[in-house]
């Protein structure tokens, strides 16, 4: 970045907020097209069963209904969806790919699976027509529990397989079995960690326009990955990629499930639009979202940690089950993340991790913010806490004794990460982060002085500190095109989508600094394949790192063009030139220069050829693809109070010390952390998808699926540290998921500390007051 970069580490107010806050932004449901029809889906009420008949004749007769489609009507288009992420090449890996049909045929495997699509003049009429469709399903016993799903004789969800196991993977480092015998202490427990929905403010939506005369298909879609959608749909529909435009306009939150590409609705609406030669729209309602949009679910871990009597970790052995839902299109990203993130910032020389992915009769599981990392962190942090208690070592002290030192980087953990590259920590400095967090929360003084006083007064106040490491910014690549227009304004187009992260500001900051313009004069365009069609999407905390680096690279290339051309125009060597305030000028004679707009006009001459080796205009396209991800890390700390009579919990303080490398906009980083912590608090204490034994979701609304509100989330104190990543020119690391990764572990630790001496041990998340009450009562009974 050029010297004097005024927007690096700057708290720039967001370019996009005025439009968003005044309702002037375009979301998919705002798309209105002439003659547009509306879609609703008949969905399975049963979690598992054989479809014996589907009768849509009455629905087709209803006035206002344009068409009703079932699996029978799709012909050759009825194909299982693609596998979106192939499992990495881990030796011995077993993976059974089973993906969903766009409309169910023969069998249903989760409540909410779409069986028929109704196209009508309004959503009201489409929903009226749902009642006209008669579906007969012979129920089969549903698989809801992971261990029961693997038991012999359990009904098979995918009948061509021998069992309900979707995958089996073992990763090893060192020799745990060999070192176990020499341990002074082995701590072993069963851990349960359940997750939830992403609960984005905007549900999914798809609007489609088929222009038969131009032979062009335009799709507005709340996707996090417009480019792969365009490419995949073009192929499936027999069109050229360039005949398909996919636009992800403003999207109200993604968090993962909107990346799960090729949802039935995404596949069916374009197909039907072409057949009917009408525009179509489908907007998911909140209740549908609980069934039809992917979620992340539970894992069951049987884990042990071997330590010396000083609390030094010799090794960890973890065997776990992972719930993948009814199908497994997203491969094994989540459980592999769990395997990798368990290692944390600690020096764990021997590690064996084995998991079995299990099909269940529930909604498909794909990554939700954190994507399996929280499960790994929960296991290692809890084992350390329990070890600390048994060894009589302080919880912060035991962590310090095991942290990887700064001299160890890059750290090669020898196991494979989700991006098919070996897990390597590129940079980090963990001890100062832990010390800063402990100091900010006042850990020593609290444990030594304040807590004993509170306990003597009969109050149950606990403190917790939890550490984590997060792989971010993975490839494959992203690209960007930067253009200086004759008005002097700059346009930056990139392929990733935006779901509220602030890309319109963050990328603008990078470009503004490279070109010396005002950040408000940089217009960023994202998520529109008409503008940019090479790239992947927004996920895995990679937007700023990968797309940001591409924007920076493209802007720097334009900067070179500016300097070269200005040097020729002003007849001055380019080393003597400076860019600032939208102008390029001679540094020592600032009046001698021209605006970038003027220069851009000169770069596109009406007379006089563009010389060989040059291009017209001030525009450049650049791509960035890191070799591997960069490692962010952090420490969360919290103080909370438990009312032992009512088992309710109140958070008194919450803080985050975070290292995401070079920071572009600290305000947006804080926003990401606050959002992540709120999400983490939700998963730790409020959110749980409650399924009954037959796979019925019992809380498919926000009345009963509880996400924390503003009154439930405390003020979050934050501090930043920076260890720049060596894998991209600006040293950036991702931060989108960090806030929610250690929260569950932290909650468990702090609640257990508040109730120290009661015998309550917390090995499961989420907690609720009801559950905490049960644990307290059970501990009381255990002691009497």
């Amino acid at each position, binding site marked *: 970045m050029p010297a004097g970069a005024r927007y690096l580490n700057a708290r720039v107010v967001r370019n996009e907020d005025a439009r968003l806050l005044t309702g002037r932004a375009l979301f998919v449901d705002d798309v209105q097209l002439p003659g547009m029809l509306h879609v609703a889906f008949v969905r399975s009420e049963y979690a598992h069963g054989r479809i014996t008949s589907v009768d849509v004749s009455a629905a087709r007769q209803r006035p206002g209904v344009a068409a009703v489609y079932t699996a029978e009507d799709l012909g050759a288009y009825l194909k299982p969806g693609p596998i979106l992420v192939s499992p990495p090449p881990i030796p011995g890996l077993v993976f059974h790919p089973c993906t969903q049909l766009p409309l169910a045929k023969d069998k249903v495997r989760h409540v909410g699976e779409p069986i028929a699509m109704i196209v009508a003049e309004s959503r009201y009429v489409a929903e009226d027509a749902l009642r006209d469709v008669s579906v007969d399903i012979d129920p089969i016993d549903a698989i809801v529990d992971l261990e029961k799903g693997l038991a012999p004789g359990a009904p098979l969800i995918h009948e061509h397989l021998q069992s309900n196991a979707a995958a089996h993977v073992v990763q090893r480092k060192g020799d745990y079995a060999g070192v176990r015998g020499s341990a002074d202490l082995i701590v072993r427990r069963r851990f349960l960690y359940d997750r939830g929905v992403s609960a984005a403010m905007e549900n999914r939506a798809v609007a489609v326009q088929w222009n038969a005369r131009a032979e062009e298909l335009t799709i507005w879609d709340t996707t996090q990955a417009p480019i792969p959608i365009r490419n995949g749909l073009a192929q499936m529909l027999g069109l050229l990629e360039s005949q398909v435009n996919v636009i992800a306009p403003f999207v109200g939150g993604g968090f993962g499930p909107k990346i799960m590409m090729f949802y039935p609705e995404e596949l069916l609406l374009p197909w039907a639009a072409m057949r009917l030669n009408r525009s179509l729209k489908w907007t998911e309602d909140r209740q549908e979202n609980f069934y039809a949009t992917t979620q992340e679910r539970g894992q069951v871990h049987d884990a042990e940690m071997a330590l010396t009597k000083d609390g030094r970790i010799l090794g960890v052995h973890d065997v776990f089950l992972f719930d993948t839902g009814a199908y497994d299109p997203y491969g094994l990203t989540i459980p592999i993340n769990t395997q990798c993130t368990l290692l944390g910032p600690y020096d764990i020389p021997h590690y064996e991790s084995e998991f079995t992915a299990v099909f269940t009769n529930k909604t498909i599981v794909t990554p939700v913010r954190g994507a399996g990392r929280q499960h790994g962190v929960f296991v290692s942090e809890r084992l350390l806490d329990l070890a600390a208690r048994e060894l009589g070592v302080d919880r912060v002290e035991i962590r310090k004794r095991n942290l990887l030192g700064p001299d160890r980087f890059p750290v090669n953990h020898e196991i494979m990460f989700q991006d098919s590259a070996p897990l390597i920590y590129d940079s980090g400095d963990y001890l100062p982060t832990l010390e800063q967090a402990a100091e900010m929360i006042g850990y020593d003084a609290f444990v030594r002085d304040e807590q004993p006083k509170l306990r003597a007064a009969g109050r149950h106040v606990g403190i917790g500190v939890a550490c984590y490491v997060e792989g971010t910014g993975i490839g494959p690549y992203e690209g960007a095109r930067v253009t200086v227009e004759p008005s002097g304004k700059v346009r930056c187009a990139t392929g990733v989508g935006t779901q509220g992260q602030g890309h319109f500001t963050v990328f603008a900051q990078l470009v503004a600094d490279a070109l010396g313009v005002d950040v408000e004069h940089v217009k960023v365009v994202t998520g529109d394949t008409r503008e940019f069609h090479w790239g992947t999407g927004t996920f895995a905390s990679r937007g700023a790192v990968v797309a940001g680096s591409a924007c920076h690279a493209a802007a720097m290339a334009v900067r070179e063009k500016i300097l070269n051309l200005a040097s020729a125009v002003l007849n001055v060597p380019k080393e003597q030139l400076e860019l600032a305030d939208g102008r390029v000028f001679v540094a020592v004679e600032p009046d001698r220069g021209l605006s970038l707009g003027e220069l851009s006009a000169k770069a596109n001459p009406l007379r006089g050829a563009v010389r060989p080796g040059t291009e017209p205009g001030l525009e450049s396209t650049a791509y960035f693809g890191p070799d591997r991800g960069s490692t962010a890390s952090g420490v969360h700390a919290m103080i909370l109070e438990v009312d032992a009579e009512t088992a309710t919990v109140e958070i008194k303080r919450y803080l985050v010390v975070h290292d995401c490398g070079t920071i572009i906009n600290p305000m947006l980083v804080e926003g990401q952390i606050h959002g992540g912590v709120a999400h983490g608090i939700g998963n730790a204490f409020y959110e749980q998808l409650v399924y009954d034994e037959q796979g019925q979701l*019992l809380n498919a609304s926000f009345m009963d699926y509880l996400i924390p509100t503003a009154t439930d989330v405390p003020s979050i104190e934050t501090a930043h540290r920076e260890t720049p990543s060596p894998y991209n020119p600006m040293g950036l690391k991702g931060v989108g998921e960090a806030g929610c990764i250690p929260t569950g572990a932290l909650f468990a630790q702090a609640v257990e500390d508040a109730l120290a001496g009661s015998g309550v041990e917390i090995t499961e998340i989420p907690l609720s007051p009801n559950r905490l009450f049960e644990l307290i009562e059970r501990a009381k009974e255990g002691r009497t």
Partner: protein
Amino acid sequence: MILNGTFTFNGPRAKVWELLQDPAVLAKALPGTKSLTKVGENSYEGVMKVSVGPMSAAEFAVNVELKDQVPPERFVMHVDGKGGVGFTKGTATIELLEIKDQAGPVTVMNYSSDMQIGGKIAAVGQRLLESVGKMMTKQALDALNAELKARL
């Protein structure tokens, strides 16, 4: 949903058993029954409209089968109901004991039922399902008891 309980009928067991086997009586007693007809030796078909406050849309097509009958002591009832707002499927075990009371014979009914509820009402009605189940059970048993007294 598990609903277990006890209810005391003011009358002899044989009479209670008779009432429980009579579809016309059941149709009057079970709240919201629009129709209930015997279609086989031990099976019934009917339509029930369950109304709870403003929630008036719950109409179910119901199949009931009586099994493992040991008159007049016990029987098992299998219920299968389907409607626009969801479905219900389950089993109830009914046991009747006669007790001699100074006022005359009374019948103590022990019931234990496990009903699976699915679809929309299960998804958004959790807060109320148990209360509704208790309420409907109470209404039905009170109505049966009133019918019993009327016949004695």
